[in-house]
C-alpha cells in the first residue's frame, strides 16, 4: 500500500518546523515516529500535502529535570521512556505504560508526542500521562502555550492542537515515592487496550493522600475517573472501598462497544482493571 503523493521536508530546527506548518496550515502533518501517521496515510485515511519530518529537531528531544517537573521531549520514543533513569525515578508510570505499547518494533519508533497528538482512544500512553497530570508545551509562530492533557484530548483522533502548532514536550510533576501501576486488557489481535487503567497513589500515614486514575479504551477519549478518585482519598483502601470506587470508574462515560466487547463487558472490564491497578499501585507504595 502506497500513500497519496505528498511533499516531504526534513526540518533541521524547531523554528523551521514552525515556519513550515504556519505556511501550510491544515495541510501539513508532523512526522515523528510515524507509527500512527504512516499507517493512516497508507490507508489514505490521511492525505497531508506536506509531511514535516522532525527526526532531527534537537529541541524536541531529551528528558531533564526542571525543578518540580520532568521535561520529556515530544520526540522521546517509547523505548527511551522504558529505559530512562529519570523517568524510572520520577515518573515510572509512563515507563510501565510504554512497556505495554504494541510490540518491540513499534516501541523502537513510536514517540510520546506522536501518541498524544494522534489521540487514539485505545492507546496506552494517554491513560498514564493523564494519571501523571501531564501538561503539554505547544509552540507556534504566534507564541507558546501550556495545556493540561485532559483539556487537550477532545475525542477519537481529535485534540486541541491548532493547525500551526507543534507539540514540543510534556511536563509531568516529579513524583518519586508514589505507588503506580498500569493494568491492561489488550485486544488479542491488535494489542490495543480494550481497557487500560493507570493508577498513581500517594500515601500519608497509611491513608490515600492523593490518587490519580487514567482510563483508556473505554470512552471516546482517555479520561480521568474523578468519581472513583473522590471515593478513595482519605481511605485506607480497604477491599470494600476499593470495590465501590472501581465500580464507578465508567460513570458519566459513553462506553465504547464493538464486535469484540459490548459496552456492558467493557464496563465490567474497566471496574475489574481499575480495582487491580489501584491495588497494585497501593502495594507498590508499601513494598
Amino acid at each position, binding site marked *: *500500500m*502506497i*500513500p*497519496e*503523493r*505528498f*511533499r*516531504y*521536508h*526534513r526540518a533541521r530546527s524547531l523554528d523551521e518546523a514552525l*515556519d*513550515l506548518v504556519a*505556511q501550510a496550515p491544515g495541510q501539513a502533518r508532523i*512526522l515523528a515516529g*510515524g*507509527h500512527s501517521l*504512516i*499507517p493512516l*496515510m*497508507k490507508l489514505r485515511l490521511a492525505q497531508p500535502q506536506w*509531511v514535516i*519530518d522532525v*527526526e532531527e529537531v534537537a529541541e524536541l528531544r531529551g528528558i531533564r529535570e526542571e525543578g518540580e517537573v520532568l521535561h520529556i521531549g515530544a520526540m522521546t520514543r517509547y*523505548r527511551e521512556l522504558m529505559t530512562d533513569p529519570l523517568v524510572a525515578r520520577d515518573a515510572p508510570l509512563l515507563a510501565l505504560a510504554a512497556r505495554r505499547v*504494541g*510490540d*518491540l*518494533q*513499534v516501541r*523502537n*519508533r513510536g514517540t510520546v508526542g506522536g501518541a498524544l497528538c494522534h489521540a487514539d482512544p485505545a492507546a496506552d500512553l494517554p491513560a498514564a500521562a493523564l494519571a501523571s497530570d501531564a501538561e503539554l508545551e505547544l509552540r507556534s509562530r504566534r507564541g507558546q502555550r501550556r495545556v493540561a492533557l485532559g483539556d487537550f484530548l477532545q475525542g477519537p483522533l481529535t485534540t486541541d492542537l491548532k493547525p500551526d502548532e507543534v507539540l514540543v514536550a510534556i511536563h509531568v510533576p516529579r513524583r518519586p515515592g508514589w505507588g503506580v501501576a498500569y493494568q491492561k486488557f489488550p485486544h488479542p489481535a*491488535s494489542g490495543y487496550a480494550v481497557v487500560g487503567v493507570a493508577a498513581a497513589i500517594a500515601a500519608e500515614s497509611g491513608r490515600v493522600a492523593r490518587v490519580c486514575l487514567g482510563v483508556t479504551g473505554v470512552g471516546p477519549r482517555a479520561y480521568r475517573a474523578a468519581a472513583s478518585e473522590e471515593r478513595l482519598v482519605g481511605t485506607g483502601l480497604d477491599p470494600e472501598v476499593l470495590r465501590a470506587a472501581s465500580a464507578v470508574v465508567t460513570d458519566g462515560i459513553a462506553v465504547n462497544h464493538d464486535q469484540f466487547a459490548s459496552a456492558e463487558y467493557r464496563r465490567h472490564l474497566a471496574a475489574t482493571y481499575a480495582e487491580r491497578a489501584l491495588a497494585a499501585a497501593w502495594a507498590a507504595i508499601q513494598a
Partner: protein
Amino acid sequence: MESTEDLVSISVTVNGRRYADQVEPRWLLAYWLRDRLGLTGTHVGCDTSQCGVCTVILNGQAVKSCTILAVQADNGTVLTVEGLAQDGTLHPVQAAFSEAHGLQCGFCTPGAEMLAVALLEENPHPTEAEIREALDGLLCRCTGYQHIVQAVALAAERKGRGA
C-alpha cells in the same frame, strides 16, 4: 524551503554498501529495498504494520520497513537478511534456524532472524521469556513459535560459548 514535489535524494548504507538514489517521499523502505535495490529477502506480509515479517535493522534497531519511508532512512544504516551471511558462511542465527528447524514455509523467517539478531546484539543471554517478548511483533502462521524460540536460544547459547 528547499523541497521538491517529486524526487528526494537519499543515501543509505545497506548491508555495508552505500546506495544513493532519488526517491518519491511516499515510497516505503520495504519497497525501496525490494524494488529499487532488488533485495527481495525482506518480505512484505500484512503491509499494515502488524505482522513484522518486513522487519529490518535500521541504525541498530529492529523496525518494520513497511511503516518507514525510505526518506526517513536517509544517512542511515540498514541491515537486511541478505547482510547476515558473510563470505558464504551462515550467520550464527541463520545456522541455528536451520539446525533447530526454526521455520516451516519460511515466509516470516527474514523478519524472525532480524529480530533475533537485534535481540542478541542487545541481550546476549536472553531467557525464554525475553526471547518470546522480542518475537511478540512477529506473526508466524506455521510453527506455533516453539521452534523459532528454540532456534534463537540455540544461537544465544553458541554465541555465549564464543562459537
